[in-house]
C-alpha cells in the first residue's frame, strides 16, 4: 500500500536518509524503530510531504506521491500524528476533531466521521466540551489519533505516540492501534520504545544513521540477539 524506494532526504544540503526502501502492505502494522537522531522523524516528514526527497520514489495505493505537498498527500487518505503535542490547546476536543475533518467538504460527512470516532474513543465523547489543553498527556494523544481518523484514512502514520506517557497509558494507546488494525486499518508506527513496537508489529524495520539496518517480522526481530542487545538493551 505504501512503498518507499531508495528514498534520499534531509534538510537542505544535509542528507539524513541515505536510500531507504520499505513496504507497508494493506492491513499491516509496520513498526520503525531506531535510536535518537537515526532519521525516524525525517522519514515521517518525507512521506507526509513536509520534506521533498532528493532521490527515490514514494508510492501510495499504486500511485506516485513523491514530492507532493502535505495537503495533497492527506487528500489521498494518509493521516498522520506528528511527534510531540500537536492539538489546538485553546479549542475544545470536539472542535479539534471537527478540524480533523477539514478536507471533507460537507458537514454531514464530518458529523458522521465524528460519531464513528466517538464510538472508538468513548472517553473523548465524555470530554468533548473540555478544552484540549486541559486534558492529560494520554488523552491529548488520543485526541490526536482520533483527529487523524476523522479523515477516514487508508493508512495512519504515527510518530512516537508513546513519548512522555506513563506505562499504563502507553498500553491504552497501543490497544487503540491494535483495535484500528483489527478493524482493517493499516498503520505505520514509528517508535523509540522498541520492545512494545516490535510486540505489536506484523513486520518491522530498524533504522540507524539513515539506513535500514534490519528488517523482518516483529516477533523475529524481537527474538534476534543482536537487535535485543542493540535496541532493547539486554
Amino acid at each position, binding site marked *: 500500500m505504501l512503498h518507499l524506494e531508495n528514498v534520499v532526504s534531509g534538510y537542505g544540503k544535509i542528507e539524513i536518509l541515505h536510500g531507504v526502501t520499505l513496504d507497508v502492505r494493506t492491513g499491516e502494522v509496520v513498526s520503525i524503530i531506531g535510536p535518537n537522531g537515526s532519521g525516524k522523524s525525517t522519514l515521517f516528514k518525507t512521506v507526509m510531504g513536509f520534506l521533498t526527497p532528493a532521490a527515490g520514489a514514494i508510492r501510495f495505493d499504486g500511485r506516485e506521491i513523491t514530492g507532493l505537498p502535505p495537503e495533497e498527500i*492527506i487528500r489521498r487518505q494518509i493521516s498522520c500524528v506528528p511527534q510531540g*503535542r*500537536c492539538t489546538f490547546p485553546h*479549542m475544545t476536543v470536539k472542535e479539534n476533531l471537527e478540524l*480533523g475533518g477539514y478536507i471533507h467538504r460537507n458537514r454531514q460527512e464530518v458529523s458522521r466521521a465524528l460519531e464513528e470516532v466517538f464510538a472508538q474513543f468513548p472517553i473523548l465523547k465524555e470530554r468533548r466540551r473540555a*478544552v484540549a*489543553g*486541559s486534558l492529560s498527556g494520554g488523552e491529548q494523544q488520543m485526541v490526536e489519533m482520533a483527529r*487523524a481518523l476523522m*479523515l477516514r484514512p487508508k493508512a495512519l502514520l504515527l510518530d512516537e505516540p508513546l513519548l512522555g506517557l506513563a506505562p499504563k497509558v502507553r498500553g491504552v494507546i497501543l490497544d487503540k492501534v491494535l483495535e484500528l488494525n483489527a478493524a482493517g486499518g493499516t498503520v505505520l508506527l514509528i517508535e523509540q520504545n522498541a520492545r512494545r513496537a516490535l510486540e505489536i508489529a506484523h513486520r518491522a524495520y530498524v533504522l540507524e544513521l539513515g539506513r535500514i539496518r534490519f528488517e523482518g517480522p516483529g516477533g523475529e526481530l524481537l527474538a534476534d540477539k543482536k537487535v535485543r542487545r542493540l535496541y532493547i538493551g539486554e
Partner: protein
Amino acid sequence: MARGAKLLTLGVLFAGLVGLPFFLTGYKLRFVTWLLMWVGLASTWNLFSGYTGYINFGPVAFFGVGAYVTAVLMVKAGVSFFPALLAAGVLAGIAALLLGVPTLRIRGAYFAIATLAFSEATRSLTLNLSGLTEGGKGLMLPIYNNAYFFYFVILGLTVAVVATVAFIQRTRFGITLVSIREDEVASQVLGVNTFLNKMAAFGLSGVFLALYGGIYAYWQTFIEPGEVFNVLYSVQMLVMTFLGGSGTLLGPIVGAVVLGAMTEYLWATFTYVYLIFVGVLIVATVLFLPDGVWGYCVQTQSRRRRRAQPAPVLE
C-alpha cells in the same frame, strides 16, 4: 442575545450612524469620520493579523500605496475618484500577494521585521519616484469640499470591512485562519494549505487598507510620503486591536473608539504630554487585560478566550 434583539441593535446603530452627520458640523464631523476610518483600519489589521497571529508591522505600506495610486491617477492621468480608488485597491492587493510569497513562509519576529522593512521601502520608493509622485514635495489632489461625502464613503467601507470579518468568522476560511494561529503545523497535518489561506487573508487586508488610503488622500487633498507611510499609523492599528482584543469581531472596534476618543481628549487637554498618558494606558492594558478590553468582557462566554490549564503531568 436573541437573534431578533441583535438585529434590532444593529438596525438602531446603523440608523444612528446614518443620521449622525446631520447633527454634527465642522470639526466634530471630521473627528467622527476619522474615528470610523480607524475602526476600519484596526478591523482590517485584525482580519489578517488578529486571526492568523502573523503580526503585520507594515500595514501602512498598503495604505500609502492606495493613497498614492489614487492621487497619481487623479492628478497625472485625470482619472476620476472611484475608478482611481478601484485601481488602487487592485494594485495593493497584487502587491500584498507578491509580498506574501516570500514573507508568509517565515514566522514570528521575522515576519514582523519583513513587513516593517517593506513599508519603509515603499516610502523610500515613493520619495524617489519623483517624476510620478513629486517626491518629498507631496501631491495636491483636486479639492472636493463635501464632508458628508467622505463620512458616507468611509462609513460604507467600514461597514463592509466589519461585515466581511463577521462573515469570515463563520466560514471554514475563518476557522482555518484561527487554526494557523493556534498551531500551524497541526493544521498542515490536517491537510490545510496554510500558505494559500494566509495569502488570501493578507491580500484581502491589502485591498481594504489601500481603499482607506485612497479615500484619505482625496479627503485630505494633500499627501506626502512621510505622512501616508507613517510607521506610527501601523503601530496605531496594532495598538487599537490589542487594546480592544485581537482575534475578535468587536475588539478592534472597541479599541479604536477607546484609543481614538482618549487621544483626542488628552491631546486637547494636555497637548504636550498626552502621549505619556497613552503610553501608560497601553502598558496597563498589556499587564492587566492581556485579552484586551472587549476580550476581557467576553472572557467568560467566549470559548476562544478560555485559557487552557496546564496538562497534568503523567510521569
